[in-house]
């Protein structure tokens, strides 16, 4: 399964799509997507607080996809990034191939974070910052914790089986739309 074969409605319902990317996510793509997000003032009119949160969560999602994506059966690092909004929230959907052996590790990390209260998530984040050597996995964990802190919401995830011991991992984050005086 490749991201382009997955119908868009599986990730986004009736939300208006503001930004979408299907394909390799590397540093150049990350920078271009973040540039587009920064320059898109009309989509975030009077919602500067939310825009900042969307930007921060997007960076962590894109950097995780950039660093942790595995090759699919076509030897490509095909990934996806979607940003949409509905009446109440902004929705970020980010996906990339991972090795099957990573499924349980990721599930455990996200489930543990989802079970924590906001202050507990912050404590967990700080405990990783205080470690002398932050491993590659702890670095990914730090990014996921940051997504939970900034969004203030539970993180959703899916795994779609693919060939050659890899699967397509999707993380979904909701960020509330907060109006500010403008």
């Amino acid at each position, binding site marked *: 399964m490749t991201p382009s074969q997955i119908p868009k409605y599986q990730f986004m319902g009736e939300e208006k799509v503001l930004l979408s990317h299907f394909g390799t996510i590397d540093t150049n793509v990350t920078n271009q997507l973040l540039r587009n997000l920064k320059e898109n003032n009309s989509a975030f009119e009077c919602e500067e607080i939310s825009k900042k949160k969307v930007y*921060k969560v997007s*960076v962590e999602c894109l950097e995780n996809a950039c660093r942790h994506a595995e090759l699919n059966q076509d030897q490509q690092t095909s990934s996806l990034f979607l940003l949409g909004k509905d009446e109440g929230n902004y929705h970020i959907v980010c996906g990339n191939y991972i090795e099957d052996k990573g499924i349980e590790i990721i599930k455990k990390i996200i489930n543990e974070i989802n079970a924590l209260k906001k202050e507990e998530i912050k404590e967990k984040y700080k405990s990783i*910052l205080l470690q002398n050597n932050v491993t590659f996995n702890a670095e990914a964990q730090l990014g996921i914790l940051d997504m939970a802190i900034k969004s203030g919401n539970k993180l959703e995830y899916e795994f779609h089986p693919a060939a050659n011991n890899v699967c397509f991992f999707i993380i979904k984050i909701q960020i509330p739309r907060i109006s500010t005086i403008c």
Partner: protein
Amino acid sequence: MEKLEIEATEFSPHVILSSQPTRFEISGESRPENTGRFYTPIINWLKEYKLYLSTNKRTNPQSPLIFEFKFEYFNSTSAKYIMDILFELDSFRADDYHFMVKWYADTLDEDMKEAGEEFSKLIEVPFEFIER
């Protein structure tokens, strides 16, 4: 002591560390491609500065040295190195030199202010929070 200045890019902050006149500031966006390579010279400069102060037997300043953080954004990987910088500032106390942190945050950026507050709980260096 030679100052350290790093120009800002789209994804890395402007850095200025100067002993004469004293100025310590990091400003802008921090998500460098290689975070370790970006922040290591900053941490090394601070270690050298501590040595410079103690070997030159400088009179302890009456007022604390001010380190200004003016981030627009920093990613989680940068947070680890910001923590290392703060620990380095904290270590100056052993030689009787005292840093103070001025932590700037945009009025609409509650996360940035909160991040500073969380950092401040981990070290003895006093923080002043400034909205801009």
